[in-house]
């Protein structure tokens, strides 16, 4: 598994197992088409960073993939199964292999952190309570929360702790594919860097595949294997950071070569291929 991940970066696309495939997806509300014939592939073991201007439908895409929103046409295949054609048993099996970190955590407010983490375990696994307690503490430790957070209610946690607790819940069943909606927003830079490192570590140890909607340039540059840009109702471009620098679109150019991006890139010692006057195109 480890070798597989290391070769992912530059290997031919055909070798890799597609975990999530979206084909010709169209989503709209009323007269308004939000996503038009969108195509997207995510491969096993990669961290895909998803960016796009506010209001371009990043959240709509994620919610459609998770079947929280209906789509008008197109096909979504998750972990090799088409959800619409799957039987009830297959759907449940599929649900246990997905983990979702919602933007605001979406922890159940009536349950403690520990109970939140144990909820999926309790429903799907046949494990004794003592082991579930231990596993809950293990997950807390993995996401960097102190053990005394276990018995707190979500309303007693800080924003960063809520993010971590929600990640712990998303990882409760050791899913194959994890969706993260702006995981580092609202965290301090050190906390955000820790969070990125944590996600990279989990990917390496658990073989996770990560779909990450983010605006954090640090995350994009440090942990994402590939980046996809949503714009004009479809995926404008997907590929490595290098592809982003070379892609000719005003928004993409100003996003990845703007002032903020340049600072980050210089710090990462990855100067853009042909840095020029870049704030063009607003």
């Amino acid at each position, binding site marked *: *598994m*480890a070798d597989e991940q290391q070769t992912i970066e530059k290997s031919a696309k055909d070798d890799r197992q597609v975990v999530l495939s979206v084909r010709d997806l169209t989503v709209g509300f009323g007269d308004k088409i939000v996503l038009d014939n969108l195509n997207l592939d995510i491969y096993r073991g990669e961290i895909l960073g998803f960016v796009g201007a506010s209001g371009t439908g990043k959240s709509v895409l994620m919610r459609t993939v998770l079947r929280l929103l209906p789509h008008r046409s197109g096909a979504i295949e998750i972990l090799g199964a088409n959800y619409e054609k799957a039987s009830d048993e297959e759907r449940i*099996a599929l649900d*246990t292999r997905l983990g979702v970190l919602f933007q605001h955590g979406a922890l159940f*407010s*009536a349950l403690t952190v520990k109970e939140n983490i144990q909820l999926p*375990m309790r429903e*799907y*696994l*046949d*494990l*004794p309570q*003592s*082991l579930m*307690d*231990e*596993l809950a*503490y*293990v*997950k807390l*430790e*993995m996401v960097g929360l102190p*053990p005394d957070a276990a018995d707190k*209610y*979500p*309303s*007693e946690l800080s924003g960063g702790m809520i993010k971590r607790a929600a990640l712990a819940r998303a*990882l409760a*069943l*050791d899913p194959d594919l994890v969706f993260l909606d702006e995981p580092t927003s609202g965290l301090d830079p050190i906390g955000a860097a820790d969070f990125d490192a944590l996600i990279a*570590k989990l990917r*390496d*140890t*658990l*073989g996770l595949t990560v779909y990450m909607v983010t605006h954090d340039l640090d995350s994009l540059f440090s942990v994402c294997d590939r980046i996809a840009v949503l714009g004009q109702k479809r995926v404008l471009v997907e590929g490595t950071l290098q592809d982003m620098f070379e892609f000719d679109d005003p928004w993409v150019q100003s996003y990845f070569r703007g002032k903020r991006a340049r600072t980050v890139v210089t710090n990462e010692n990855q100067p853009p291929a042909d840095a020029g006057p870049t704030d063009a195109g607003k």
Partner: protein
Amino acid sequence: MSSNLAKINSEALPDGGERYVLTGDWRNHSVSAVLKDLDQFQKSGEQGKVEIDLSGISAIDTAGAWLIRRLMTAKSGEGREASLSGGNGTIEELIGALPETTPAPPAPAADKRSFFERVFTPPGKLVYEVGSDFYAAMNILGSAVRGAQLKFGRGAGVSPASVVTHIDRMGVRAVPIIVLMSFLIGAIIAQQGAFQLRYFGAEIFVVDLVGILQLREIGVLLTAIMIAGRSGSAITAEIGSMKMREEIDALTVIGLNPIGVLIFPRLVALTIALPLLTIIANFAALYGAAIVALLYSGITFDTYLSRLHEAIDHTSIASGMIKAPFMALAIGIVAAVEGMKVGGSAESLGQHVTASVVKAIFAVILIDALFAIFYSAIDF
């Protein structure tokens, strides 16, 4: 789901000690099969080093890795040297990423309080709660009266648009249900009264019965109870969810008094709407009673009206109507107090909405009883 369950076997090593051979899927849905064996191995009193052979593991996740980690920790705790072998690197990395131990579950705290304390603490708490509820209610009443004017001269104290919106929501839209309910109540009272009065040949007095009962007591009481359930719960839910999402705090830092902005218009609207609804309810009930009197006892509308004219006077109407604004205030204040007490969880919102309705109905009935005593004392 694969049925490749996790297994563990032990074999002796030539130089003393044991080797645990792990096979199968060590994933969260397949490890439950191995838990019993694992417990035995964890307690086994063998000596010498322990080698854990991972080569037979086909799949693993944190649950499996944690079980292995726990086994290693237990063996090291016995003073035996534990090592891993045969892994492919990833498994070792995963196991290494886990903590060595988890905190022991806290022992359930023993209830050290004496019998006396345990019996008398809840009622004592209840008394304090009632007291603090009363203070909160007075605070809201005071802030509502005073707070609306704390706007540094910016416009009028009350925003008329807000009051009108709330009158529409709490008053106008409640008309159909209030009319229907009062019509039926009037009809039922008339029918029951006529049935009993028939024995005395005094069926005509059913008009007195319905008129006085409806105007003095039932009309305002049932309307207030209906509004407590309908609008009191809505006020608590609105204010409670605004509290949960820090909207109340936002109002405060903008420099607006949340009670003046949110609660005062609702109180004003309720105080206007409830008396008006009571009038509608009274008409509906008297109309229902008139129809039953005609059909059941053969009392014509003319007879009904002339008898009603003799039975009731201004005091009957006034004594009922005076209660309405007080009940409206009580409903609004109780709902606001409960709304402001909502905490961070959805559960607490539900609890306080329930408490709001129960307390508001209780307050309405209490007010009705106090007025009854008061009226009889002053012979009204």
